[in-house]
């Protein structure tokens, strides 16, 4: 329990230990701790950034979907409108075509009627002449009365 030379030996020992610790032990460990801290902070920041980016992406996707929906609706509307137009046009065309066909048929009928009537007239005239011939054979000479008969046939 005496204070003796050990005191100085202990002081020197202590100084050497502290120097060694300060030179070789403390700096690398503290450096590693600081590096890890920076790494973790970086990782957290990156995670936060990723989160933000995901939110932005989600928003963007929603916007795109909305846009696509509205443009699809627009396209469908346009198509429906166009279809209605086409139907309308077709109806008009069909009606016009019908009218044309009808008119043509009517004209044909008219022509046919006229032709038939002409034929009929001629045949009636011939029949009348033949009948008149038979009647007149007894009374008049065909030659004498020919002009009269033809005139009559024209009047039919």
């Amino acid at each position, binding site marked *: *329990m*005496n204070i003796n030379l*050990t*005191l100085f*030996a202990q002081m020197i020992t*202590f100084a050497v230990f502290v120097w060694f610790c*300060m030179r070789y032990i403390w700096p690398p460990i503290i450096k590693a701790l600081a590096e890890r801290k920076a790494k973790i902070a970086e990782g957290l920041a990156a995670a936060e950034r990723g989160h933000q980016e995901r939110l932005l992406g989600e928003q963007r996707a929603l916007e795109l979907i909305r846009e696509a929906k509205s443009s699809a609706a627009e396209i469908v509307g346009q198509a429906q409108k166009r279809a209605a137009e086409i139907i309308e046009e077709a109806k008009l065309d069909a009606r016009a075509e019908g009218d044309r066909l009808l008119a043509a048929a009517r004209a044909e009928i008219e022509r046919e009627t006229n032709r038939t009537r002409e034929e009929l007239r001629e045949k009636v005239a011939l029949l009348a002449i033949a009948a008149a011939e038979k009647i007149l054979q007894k009374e008049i000479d065909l030659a004498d009365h020919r002009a009269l008969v033809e005139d009559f046939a024209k009047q039919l």
Partner: protein
Amino acid sequence: MAASETFSSQSYIQHHLTNLTFGWHPEHGLTLAHDQAEAAAMGFWAINLDTLFFSILLGALFLWLFKQVAERVTAGVPGGAQNFVEWVVEFVEENVRGSFSHRNPLVAPLALTIFVWILLMNAMDLIPVDLVPHLFSQLMAVLLGADPHHVYLKIVPTTDPNATFGMAIMVFLLMLYYSLKMKGVGGFIVELTLQPFGKWGLPANLILEGISLLSKPVSLALRLFGNMYAGEMIFILIALLYGGGLLLAGTAGLLQFVWAVFHILIVILQAFIFMVLTVVYLDMAHQEHH
């Protein structure tokens, strides 16, 4: 080695409180002291081999362990040893940052060294008091033919005031150095002489400040020494009970366990106090008064 007829309680205690001292004896020359009287006769020019050996052994153990980790330290996922070392380093750094408000690359490593070294030296107290000294004295008896009753060994360096004062004096020198460096000679003298009572109370100031300055290393050293010495003494007294029959031995076993558990607290606490006070004292040395 309990109290026996040939080995009384008093000599048992004495035996445990004597260092293995090597030095120059006025009559016997350069030799190991065979008892306390011889050690005292050697005066200042003697060395406590046990204190020196165990303190250097433990300090080297601490530095070796931490150096191992420092060499392969990684900022990635730490292994077991690195985890432990980082935990200690962070604990010390946190304390230094809490009480030391200046920039000085010395203070944190100093605090770490103080904390771990003292902790290890204190922890030697938890080894049963007789184990190492007994083995050592038997070994010496066999090897050198020494009388085992006169082979001394104290394995707890912090129960030797040389060790605690050695550290406290180094801390004190650092305090003086940084006081002079940061405040200048004039500033330091002003701090010692012109407060707290102003210039008319100069002698009183000098006495007060001088005592408060000197009391720092003294209290630092004596607190640690006193606590560890007292703890060691209790262990020795408990060990004495082992020789007193079955009942006393059983009681002693229980007491020893309880005291050891309590002593773990003291071991850590004293190391922590020494570290924190060192940091605080150095912080005060750095502070400039205006």
